[in-house]
């Protein structure tokens, strides 16, 4: 019999019941909650007079609606009354049911996918869910982690289980070493460019190969974060020494004997050498260049040295129309050089790229330089209060501010513009977030997805440039 994949192992370890009809009950170790997708779930519990099954499995924080300025005002600083009600509702629900919440004034508050790993609330081998598609981020720890809808948030609150069908196994292998200035973000954008936004649909993707193994935990999180942009609810990386080193000493991580027992188990969390995958895709890490998205879907990416495509050259009529529509929305010309795209704003942040290494990477590029005068705004939004404090301890805030970037308080911010941070109509933004959908960052806004160092380089130049030239 063939060996097991990492996904098979995690699935088997959490299987409560296999039903005859092919569905299964899977036990959930951790649920993360935020203000946008939880209110209707709590309301459902109340209406059905149900109680949460296991309170300590839940951890909550507001992130989508929180303002990134004037944090000292707390909830009162939320200008939009509807946003404010949502954040207050999360607080009331957590208080009522006794769920631990990092509230808006807590230094541990931040984007759910940043704070889970930061606290050690994300541990290898867990099943983790959240009413948010980027829950795939946590798979970087050898977890089975995926986004769910609000009805399922309620289901997990009430039963600690999810009804699931087993997915197929897919391996994305990035061989060799990455070139200088090429980051996890470029790797994942290149993968999506290759397999498309539905390339992983129905599959759990494991990312492997030397280039992935060489990445830090934060780089791996960036990659797993965007598995959903390749259509896969689940992205994973096997546990290794890097994983264990990262988890050690975090507030929720086991200590003493429990730590040793945990590590022994975690060491088994990798695919067996003879495991069989339903689908395998390989990339050569050395060939990956810094990436820039030019269109309105994350698969619409190009090398920074490349050009916007010409729809006339596309044979598939549906794809051709997609390209034409995207170019019209983005205000770009066929064959235009990527480096000719001028920018109005730069956003460094989001659950994809707002961790300390991302900020260090961006700071290294802007240090001693100035933001281009043609830019309306360039902002840096750390992923959590603790990331912010760490960056300030390292003096990164000074570097950003001196270069002319704004230094903000933690939250989702302009990743989806539910708070006050947004793009104006027709504005181009170099953004380290994960979605370039129409209107994502503001009505009529034009998003280009890039790595933190590419965003920083664009801030300095006012248009896209190959960051590798600035690093020399």
């Amino acid at each position, binding site marked *: 019999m063939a060996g097991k994949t990492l996904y098979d192992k995690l699935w088997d370890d959490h299987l*409560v*019941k296999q039903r005859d*009809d*092919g*569905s299964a*009950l899977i*036990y959930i*170790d951790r649920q993360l909650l935020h203000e*946008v*997708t939880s*209110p209707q779930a709590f*309301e459902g519990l109340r209406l059905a007079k149900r109680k949460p099954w*296991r309170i300590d499995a839940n951890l909550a924080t507001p992130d989508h609606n929180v303002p990134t300025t004037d944090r000292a005002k707390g909830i009162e600083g939320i200008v939009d009354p*509807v946003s404010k*009600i*949502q954040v207050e*509702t999360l607080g009331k629900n957590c208080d009522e049911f006794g769920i631990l919440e990092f509230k808006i004034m807590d230094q541990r508050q931040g984007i759910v996918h940043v704070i889970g790993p930061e*606290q*050690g*609330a994300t*541990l290898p*081998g*867990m099943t983790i869910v959240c009413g*948010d*598609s980027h829950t795939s981020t946590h798979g970087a720890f050898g977890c089975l982690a995926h986004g*769910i*809808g*609000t*009805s*399922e948030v309620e*289901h997990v609150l*009430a039963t*600690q289980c999810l*009804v699931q*069908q087993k997915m197929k196994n897919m391996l994305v292998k990035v061989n060799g070493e990455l070139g200088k200035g090429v980051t996890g973000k470029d790797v994942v954008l290149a993968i999506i460019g290759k397999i498309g*936004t*539905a390339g992983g*649909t129905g599959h759990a993707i494991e990312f492997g190969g030397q280039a992935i193994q060489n990445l830090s935990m934060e780089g791996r999180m960036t990659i797993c974060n965007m598995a959903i942009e390749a*259509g*896969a*609810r689940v992205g994973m990386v096997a546990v290794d020494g890097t994983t264990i080193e990262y988890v050690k000493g975090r507030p*929720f*991580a*086991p200590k003493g004997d429990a*730590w040793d027992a*945990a590590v022994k*188990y975690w060491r088994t969390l990798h695919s067996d050498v003879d495991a069989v995958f339903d689908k395998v895709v390989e990339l050569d890490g050395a060939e990956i260049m810094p990436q820039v998205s030019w269109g309105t*879907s994350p698969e619409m990416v190009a090398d920074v040295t490349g050009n916007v495509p010409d729809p006339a050259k596309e044979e598939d009529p*549906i794809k051709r129309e*997609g390209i034409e*529509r995207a170019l019209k929305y983005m205000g770009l010309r066929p064959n235009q050089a990527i480096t000719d795209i001028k920018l109005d704003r730069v956003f460094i942040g989001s659950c994809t790229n707002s961790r300390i290494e991302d900020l260090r990477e961006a700071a290294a590029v802007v240090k001693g330089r100035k933001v281009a005068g043609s830019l309306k705004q360039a902002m840096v939004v750390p992923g959590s209060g603790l990331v912010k404090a760490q960056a300030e301890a390292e003096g990164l805030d000074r570097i950003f501010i001196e270069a002319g970037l704004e230094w903000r308080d933690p939250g989702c911010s302009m990743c989806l*513009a*539910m708070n006050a941070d947004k793009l104006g109509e027709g504005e181009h933004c170099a953004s380290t977030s994960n*979605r370039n*959908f*129409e*209107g*994502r960052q503001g*009505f*009529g806004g034009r998003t280009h997805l890039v790595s933190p160092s590419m965003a920083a380089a664009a801030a300095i130049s006012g248009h896209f440039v190959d960051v590798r030239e600035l690093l020399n």
Partner: protein
Amino acid sequence: MRAFTQHKGLVAPMDRSNVDTDMIIPKQFLKSIKRTGFGPNLFDALRYLDEGQPDQDSSKRPLNPDFVLNQPRYRNASVLLARSNFGCGSSREHAPWALDDYGFRVIIAPSFADIFYNNCFKNGLLPIVLEEKIVDKLFQDAEALEGYQLTVDLEAKTVITPAGESFGFEVDDFRRHCLLNGLDDIGVTLEDAELIKTYEDQRRQTAPWLFDAGQ
């Protein structure tokens, strides 16, 4: 949950692939803490010419005449015909809530994004996957014939055209069962509460670090 057995309704063809959930219901409407009332803002940015705001009376807003749902012949459509990878992007269940609130009961496409597909079943909405060739044909017919209706039979797992052609579709048994009977799946799961407790007790022994951490 509302049960779904059979449905016959007018078809609206939305000829665009990769329709994401941001497009189905833009973020400014996610601030609501309710499950209802999203219908007027379904496809908001495509449907209206201005930028919509929550708590606004959408009946007075300028409509985009080019958008399919604004064409009089598709008024009261309840079957949405769509292209591949429908519902990609964010996990927001507000997307099926908005489709449902607008009046859709069935969505037919060559493929759906996983989370969206799953969310539909929780809300009495039936997503149907049909082969690309068949979807192409339905697009042609729906555009050619005004008043084109389809009949969907979940029990028999078929889509039937006005000409009497019948196309079978797949749907897994558990979801079909819940939808046919309008079952609350939390209730179904809780029938196995003892099994869950047994599993949990075992896990407390084998992986104690997963319990009461950081409290």
